[in-house]
Every structure is written in structure tokens, then in C-alpha cells.
């Protein structure tokens, strides 16, 4: 995309001129994340998380490729090969901890990115396609993370595989056969482990492809901004480079401090001790839970304990869990308010924070044992979760009286002082 005032790529070195004629890759980069991409001047730090997510994907691909050089996806030796990486391979402990905690970091960053979208209405036209692609990326991330967690073949890996593939057995008629087909057997084993490894290697590159589509479709309308008011003039924007390369660079530094703190000082904080016990098909651990980033959805799965009319509780839980994410696909059409940003939507922003608390509480219940009062609390929270998207958002967007919007981004930043408006 480009606004008419976008700077143009002008290679000066003969080699770059030559390259620009034959394969204009530097021009592409210049226009995508360089000085050739004008970006709203008022982006706050919530806008750092897209770049951070991209960086996490890079960490995962790089550490993952080298881990695959040492890992053996055979049920007999997978656990031992993981311990071999931890104990014998040079820096193996670092690579594995970086990869395992990289997944946590990736999800943390992406959750903030998604909730940024909720608050600022980033999903609204003309940016629906960016949002839809983002939800696809999130689903792919969940599949990739799940299959990656199975690979060490510890107790949590094994029983995670059993439970998550068991979700498909809830599908009426074909469920049982589908479950067996997915596993390549009647219980997780060599066949399942090998295919999970194969797909765990493939999917990150699929994610990379969808990320490219995500950014491509972003560059057509350009980035949104905290006011939700579209760019009108050149004074509303600054070039991506150096302004946001610098701002993102600072955010990246803060991110890396936190990430390294976890990798070096609390590498097992987000893991489960049970996964250091080799997989045992005869014994389910007393308390099986997925990784923290699945907890809110796991709580919704477990919230259904009674049959719902003709739908069995098991199928209902599975449907609800998937619907909790699929409902995001409809967000651009559920929230009809013409105002994007929560800054100018007094009701929407209150309900936004209620949703944040609801999801955090769901997460807490999802990590807790399957007993009262957590089950009952999960039920209330799950109902509210769906109410938020299906009832509250549409009603709020029709009832709410938005606060007055600024005329432009420049006015929002600098006030109405004409002299302060940049014209360069």
C-alpha cells in the first residue's frame, strides 16, 4: 500500500541499482518495513506486539530446526533423546529451554496483540481480512504448540495427545474412526509421534506464509492507530523507518530481557514436572493440564458436565471450546459501532476490561483441578465469554453514544494548533 506521499526507493550503489532491475527485493523491504511505509505517528507500545510475534516465530523456527538435528521421533527413544539434548548436546539445554519458553513467549505476545485488536477495534473494516488471517494464524499456532508439546514423550505429552485427539472422538458417527485415523492406532504411539513431529516441523512454515498474507493485507489500508481515525494527510504519518524500527527495537529489548530472564532463571516455570516422567500408557497423572496458554479454552471444555438437550456433554464441551475461538471470525460483523477505538467508546471499553478479567479467570480455572468450585465458576465464566461476543458487543454497539472523535490523528496528537502541524 502506499499513501501518495510515501518515500520512494532510490538505490544509489550500482549493485543495488542492478539488483533493483533484476530482483527488486530491497525495494520490497523498503516499502514494507522501511522508509517507504508511512505509518500513523501516534502508535503506542500496544503496536509493538506484531513485530514481537514475528520475532518469536523466528526464534521458534531457528531453535526448532537445530533441535530437530538431535531429536528422535521414535516412541522408544524420544524421551531419552530429549534428555540427551538437555545433558549431552552442546548448549542443548539452552536451545530446548529457549524453544519451550519461546512458545510461551509467542503466545503471551500474541494474546496481547489480539486483545489490542479487541480494544482498538482493529478488526473493523477496512481491516477485516487482516483480522481473519490473524485468527487463522492463532489456530495454526495452537495446533503447532500442541504437537510440539507431545514430542518429548513425557507423561504430560502422552496424556495431552490422548486427551486432545480424544476431542475428535466426540464428533457423531465418524468420531471413533477419525480418532483412530488421526493417531494411526488405538492409543498414541509411534505412528502418532512421528506424524506430530512431521507436522510440527511443517506448520511453522505455513504460519510464516499466512503471516506474509497478514502483513500484505495490512499494507493495503495501512496500520490502524489508537484514535481509530484514518490517516488523512502526510502530517498524520511518519516513515516506518527510522521511527518505528526504533520504537519496535526498544520494545524488542524489553521483551528479550523478560524472555531471557525466564529462559535462564526459571526455565521450567511454565512446564510441568510430570513431563520429566517418561510416557506411561497405563497411568494417567493425577492432575493433567495443558500448557498455560490453553487454559481458558480448556476451562470452557470442562465446563460442560451435563447433556444439553440431545447433545452429549462431551460433544458440547468440544463444540464450545472450538467456538470460543471461531467466534472471533465473526467479530467484524458482531461489533457494528462505526467508532473503532475504545478510547472513544465509554461502554465498550468497560466491557473490554470485564472480558479481560473473564478470560484471566477462565485461565485460572483451566489450570485448576477438575472439581468444585472451579467447574461451576468455569460455567459462569464460559457463559459470560459467549455473552460478551454474541450479545453484549452487538447491543453495546447500537446503544452506546461514542465520545467525540478528533478530526485527525495530527489534531489528536498536537491539538488544533495549526502551527504545530508538520508539513514536511
Amino acid at each position, binding site marked *: 500500500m502506499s499513501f501518495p506521499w510515501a518515500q520512494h526507493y532510490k538505490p544509489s550503489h550500482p549493485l543495488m541499482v542492478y539488483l533493483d532491475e533484476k530482483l527488486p527485493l530491497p525495494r520490497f523491504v523498503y516499502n514494507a518495513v522501511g522508509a517507504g511505509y508511512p505509518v500513523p505517528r501516534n502508535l503506542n507500545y500496544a503496536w509493538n506486539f506484531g513485530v514481537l510475534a514475528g520475532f518469536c516465530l523466528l526464534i521458534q523456527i531457528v531453535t526448532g530446526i537445530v533441535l530437530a538435528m538431535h531429536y528422535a521421533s521414535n516412541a522408544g527413544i524420544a524421551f531419552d533423546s530429549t534428555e540427551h539434548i538437555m545433558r549431552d548436546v552442546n548448549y542443548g539445554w539452552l536451545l530446548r529451554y529457549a524453544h519451550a519458553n519461546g512458545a510461551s513467549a509467542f503466545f503471551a505476545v500474541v494474546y496481547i496483540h489480539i486483545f489490542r485488536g479487541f480494544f482498538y477495534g482493529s478488526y473493523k473494516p477496512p481491516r477485516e481480512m487482516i483480522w481473519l488471517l490473524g485468527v487463522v494464524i492463532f489456530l495454526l499456532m495452537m495446533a503447532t504448540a500442541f504437537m510440539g508439546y507431545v514430542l518429548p514423550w513425557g507423561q504430560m505429552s502422552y496424556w495431552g495427545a490422548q486427551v486432545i485427539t480424544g476431542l475428535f472422538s466426540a464428533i457423531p458417527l465418524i468420531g471413533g474412526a477419525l480418532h483412530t485415523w488421526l493417531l494411526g492406532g*488405538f*492409543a498414541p*504411539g509411534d505412528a502418532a509421534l512421528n506424524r506430530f513431529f512431521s507436522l510440527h516441523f511443517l506448520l511453522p512454515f505455513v504460519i510464516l506464509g499466512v503471516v506474509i498474507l497478514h502483513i500484505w493485507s495490512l499494507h493495503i489500508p495501512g496500520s490502524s492507530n489508537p484514535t481509530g481515525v484514518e490517516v488523512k494527510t502526510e502530517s498524520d504519518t511518519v516513515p516506518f523507518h527510522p521511527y518505528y524500527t526504533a520504537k519496535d527495537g526498544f520494545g524488542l529489548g524489553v521483551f528479550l530481557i523478560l524472555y531471557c530472564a525466564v529462559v535462564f532463571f526459571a526455565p521450567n516455570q511454565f512446564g510441568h514436572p510430570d513431563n520429566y516422567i517418561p510416557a506411561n500408557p497405563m497411568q*494417567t497423572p493425577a492432575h493433567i493440564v495443558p500448557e498455560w496458554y490453553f487454559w481458558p479454552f480448556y476451562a470452557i471444555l470442562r465446563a460442560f458436565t451435563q447433556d444439553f438437550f440431545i447433545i452429549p*456433554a462431551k460433544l458440547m464441551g468440544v463444540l464450545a471450546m472450538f467456538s470460543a475461538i471461531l467466534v472471533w471470525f465473526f467479530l467484524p460483523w458482531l461489533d457494528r459501532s462505526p467508532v473503532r477505538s475504545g478510547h472513544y467508546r465509554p461502554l465498550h471499553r468497560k466491557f473490554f476490561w470485564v472480558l479481560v478479567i473473564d478470560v484471566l479467570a477462565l485461565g485460572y480455572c483451566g489450570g485448576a483441578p477438575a*472439581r468444585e468450585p472451579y467447574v461451576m465458576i468455569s460455567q459462569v465464566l464460559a457463559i459470560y465469554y459467549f455473552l460478551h461476543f454474541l450479545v453484549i458487543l452487538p447491543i453495546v454497539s447500537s446503544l452506546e453514544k461514542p465520545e467525540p472523535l478528533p478530526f485527525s490523528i495530527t489534531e489528536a496528537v498536537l491539538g488544533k494548533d495549526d502551527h504545530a502541524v508538520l508539513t514536511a
Partner: protein
Amino acid sequence: MADDAVIDTPEHAPVVTDGGVRRRDFINIAAVSAAGVGAVSVLLPLVSQMAPSADVLAESSTDVDLASIQVGQGIKAVFRSQPLFVRRLTPKEIAAADAVPVASLRDPETLAQRTKPGKTEWLITMAVCTHLGCVPLGIVSTENRGEFGGYFCPCHGSQYDTAARIRKGPAPKNLEVPDYAFTTDTAIKVG
């Protein structure tokens, strides 16, 4: 281009059969059909390879010796690489199972239907929760047996009674009773 009428000039007139079908239509349909059949036949092995392989399918049967199991005890055996519960019920547990009105159950079955005639005390079921496949607790009396004295699945809280029937929680079915037969009075063959 709609008005690109070259093929309609007399010397290029398309060959039209009686039904109004041009030769080119036939070639298009035939070519696309052949490619479609080819694509499907390539897809078949790609999908089918995911199904259980022959060695996995080569079912085995499991012999279990019951002689050493006392009343009230239970053991966990292995059948088709999945755990199997073999439990010898106490008279009290049998009475508790028989006292439940069958119609009130989510998956209505009597204890007699779930055991062999004259062998009601031997409850043999898969140790695979019908919810999402965890191994329930309760085969040993020191484990949590839930409210109904049978089995308790720690994963999502499904509770089974002393006939391993689902009573509470998300599981849709009773614990599965595999095919088995008594080979002697104190031995069974499962599968």
C-alpha cells in the same frame, strides 16, 4: 474477450454435434475429469497411510489369570496396548450396582449385562475413560473412587459406579466392556 469471434468465422467454425456440444467442450470435460480422477487416486494413499498400519492392526488377545485376585481387589492388565481393569466386586458393590434404577442412567445397562452369567463379581472393562481417554482411578481401593464407589477420572471429573457405568461428569458412555470369555473358572481370554 466476448467479441473475439475468430473461431466463429466460417473457416474456423467449431464442430458442433447434434446436441449442441462442441468437440472442445468434450475435450475440456474429459481432460478435467481425468485429472480429477488422477488427483483423487493420488489422495487415496496419502490419506490412507494415516490409518493404523498392519502391525498395529494385528490384534492380539490377552490372557488374564484371576486366581490371585481376592474379593474387593482389582488389577490393571494390558489389552491392545491399552489398560484394562479386572475387578472382583464385593457383594456390597454388586448390591449397590443392582440397586440403581437402570432407566435413570445416562447409558442404561445392568451389571448383569456387563458381566458374564454366573460371574457377576468379575467386572472386566477397558480402563479408558469414554470422555477423552484418560485412565480413571479406583482399581485399587486406596485410590479416589468418586462418589459412586467405582472409578473416578482425574482429568475432567467423570465418575463411574461399581458397574463402571457413567454417573456424573462429562463422559457420554459406560466404560467399555471388551469381548472376552472365561477359559477356566479362574482365567479369561480378552479379544
